[in-house]
């Protein structure tokens, strides 16, 4: 591990600790017993295979979406539109899987995921194009695109594809469902954990290689660090931004895999439950590193699943507060840690 990764690790760990301390104090102020609450959260998660399985299940879509965002963030594209992008992709994935049910299992999965990927990717290309041609910040366009995409998905779903008086599509045939982990490892008895989780781990590893070890990843990070210098260094920066946006947005569609093929068998409006936004915090906490994303996704999943158990003691919005504080303390701690280790020479 080189010096820079070490410094990153220190600052990320410190900010998590700082966050926990702040929550601790916050709970004291609210006159709740922090020890009780924390121990309840952890016992809920780690008591049995079911708890662990459910936590990993919740981490799965976070890993997918965050890996997509990591690509964007490395290119300095602040994509806030994952929530919309992933819904469009997941919706199309489910539709394709329903319509092409004559295909054999692996082919059907592949084709429907690719279709979802392309749709999400195209919705990423729109803000990318506006950014390049008109110099409009992608932060604004992607936020606005969320509303547009969700409204479109809602419209097409309700008017053409939904099962009557529900917000979901038909169910795909049970033949096309993913293997549940409980069928292989009885330890996870009862949980919805499925092989999507392993695919998420594989993707995180591949994205790590892609971003840090390939020529394109190298260019992508250059553009993110300094777009003007990259252009002068002979990189086609606009092409890099378009491709990064397409890939990044496309990957978010994979979040639907866990729900559609691994859990319910259909697309349901609202399934994403704001993971498009939670993933922003996850990615930032991981410093855009896909391997780090695995761990920060797990942390957020622990808080999410364990948070259910303390619902009677504290409102579940407390977990949103945790997300917010993590980002703020990360920014503050990061600056301090970097200054401390830098010994920067000013002349």
């Amino acid at each position, binding site marked *: 591990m*080189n*010096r820079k990764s070490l410094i990153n690790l220190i600052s990320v760990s410190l900010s998590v600790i700082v966050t926990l301390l702040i929550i601790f104090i916050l709970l004291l102020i609210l006159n709740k017993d922090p020890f009780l609450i924390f121990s309840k959260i952890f016992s809920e998660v780690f008591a049995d295979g079911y708890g662990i399985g459910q936590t990993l299940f919740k981490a799965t879509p976070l890993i997918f979406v965050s890996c997509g965002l990591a690509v964007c963030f490395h290119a300095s594209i602040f994509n806030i539109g994952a929530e919309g992008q992933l819904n469009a992709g997941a919706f199309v994935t489910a539709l394709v899987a329903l319509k092409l049910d004559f295909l054999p299992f692996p082919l059907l999965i592949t084709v429907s995921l690719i279709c979802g990927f392309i749709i999400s990717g195209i919705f990423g290309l729109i803000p990318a194009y506006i950014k390049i041609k008109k110099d409009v910040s992608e932060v604004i366009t992607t936020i606005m695109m969320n509303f547009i995409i969700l409204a479109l998905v809602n419209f097409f779903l309700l008017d053409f594809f939904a099962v009557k008086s529900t917000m979901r599509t038909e169910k795909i045939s049970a033949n096309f469902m993913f293997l549940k982990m409980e069928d292989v490892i009885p330890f996870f008895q009862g949980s919805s954990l499925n092989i999507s989780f392993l695919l998420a781990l594989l993707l995180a590893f591949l994205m790590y290689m892609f971003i840090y*070890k*390939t*020529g394109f*990843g*190298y*260019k992508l*990070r*250059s553009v993110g*660090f*300094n777009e*003007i*210098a*990259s*252009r*002068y*260094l*002979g*990189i086609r920066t606009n092409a890099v931004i378009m491709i990064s946006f397409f890939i990044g947005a496309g990957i978010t569609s994979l979040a639907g895999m866990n729900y559609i093929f691994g859990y319910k068998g259909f697309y349901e409006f609202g399934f994403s439950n704001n993971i498009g936004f939670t993933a922003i915090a996850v990615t930032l906490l991981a410093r855009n590193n896909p391997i780090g994303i695995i761990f920060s996704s797990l942390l957020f999943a622990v808080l999410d699943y364990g948070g259910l158990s303390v619902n009677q003691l504290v409102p579940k919005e407390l977990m949103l507060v945790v997300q917010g504080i993590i980002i703020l303390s990360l920014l503050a701690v990061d600056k301090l840690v970097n200054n401390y280790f*830098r*010994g*920067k*020479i*000013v*002349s």
Partner: protein
Amino acid sequence: MKAVEFIEVTRKFGNFKANDEISFDIKSNDVHCILGENGAGKSTLMNILFGIIKKDSGKMKIFGEEKDFKSPLDAIKNGIGMVHQHFMLIEDFTVLENVILGNEITLKTGIDFKRSELILNELVEKYSLGLDVNARISELSIGQQQKVEILKLLFRESDILIFDEPTAVLSPVETDRFFKIIGTFKNDGKTIIFITHKLNEVKYISDRVSVLRKGKLVYESDNADKDLNIPELSRAIVGELSEISNPVKRAAEINTSDAVVLENINLVLNELNVLNGLDLKLKKGEIHGICGVEGNGQSGIVDVIYGIEKNFTGSFKKYIEGGISLVPDDRKRKGFIKEYNIGENISLKGKNLNYLPEKRINEISGKIISENDIRVSDIESPMGDLSGGNQQKVIFARESDSENYVIVLVHPTRGVDINASAFIHGRILKLRNEGKAVLVISSDLDELILLSDRLSVLYKGKILKTFARKDFSGYIKEENEVELTADPDFLQSIGKLMTGITDE
């Protein structure tokens, strides 16, 4: 009377002593020059004086009173003003708005613009600054922007004025005008502290000089009678001249053939005529220098030749195979990725970029470091942690090591210290001797005269005149010497051309 006294001022950054027990006085109503290479500690000392950085130990007295400024505001209140190397102006504000910002004259109903304008116009007149106080900063040239910074100091009635490399961005004519303004300041009884790299200017303008090297005061001399010993001074600044003892000589003229030919190039950007019928010929084995006041089309030439700008009219012909190398003007913005280390920055420019393993990257870094005498504590340090001179050496190495036969260099030694400058100049001559076509665009006339085989004057996007080396080589004392003096008459005629005055 002493305006400023530094007594054993020390400031450390980590283990590095930027200022190491520096003690000296600056007399009131003097023009006091502070000299030293990059990283010698000049800026740190000035930042302490201006309240940007705090000192670790030692004392500082202003007009006999001990002071320890907590912020620039604190320093400004005590009559200290500073013109930074990079101007601190808001582009979309007018001159007036920029100058009064922070020191507004107010009425009950708001800012008193009328009175402010009156006061500013008086100041502009008194110091003959020739500024329109209602012009927007974005409409002004670099030289005029500097005058706005000076106007700021006058408006705040500062007594001690600090100038950080004020002439680096000025043409000879503008520099002359600037020195006249300095003269008026002196007559008004103000104290002027002047940081520069240009020794001719020091001799001309200063009353006293102090030289810093590696954070220590190493040399002081009086110059009230303008009898400064320049060779002694330059030795004090650089310590040992390791590179200059082994200079690269200009080889005899090689059989030159055309490499790149630009004919009647017109380029319009944002409704401005950047290039206006420009003709330029680069030949193999020849250094073609271009001088001119900044903003007369320099960046346009670069962007056209380098292929960044494609919407031009006219003919652009390239007679040799291969790409074009570029050392850009603004290295921090265009030259490298500061988060990447040396090897990564070098290999970034390679064709068919593929992932290079860390070991290979470090090999490349090691090679560049040893071949170019780059000072770096850790081979994996990001480029952003290197000093300006070392960054420039890396960029220069990257661009000159390639197979490319056309090399464009913009301000190759701006902000680079004397040792590194000499090193880079030697390399530029070597490229020429190898038969490459070299274009040097610079605002440093001495540098251009030292290097150029042909020297063109650029004005409003057009080449006004091109001199052959024999036109000016007679005036050069000796090539590759630290101090180089060109004939004043020649300099004057070039200076005139740079402002668009043609005698013919």
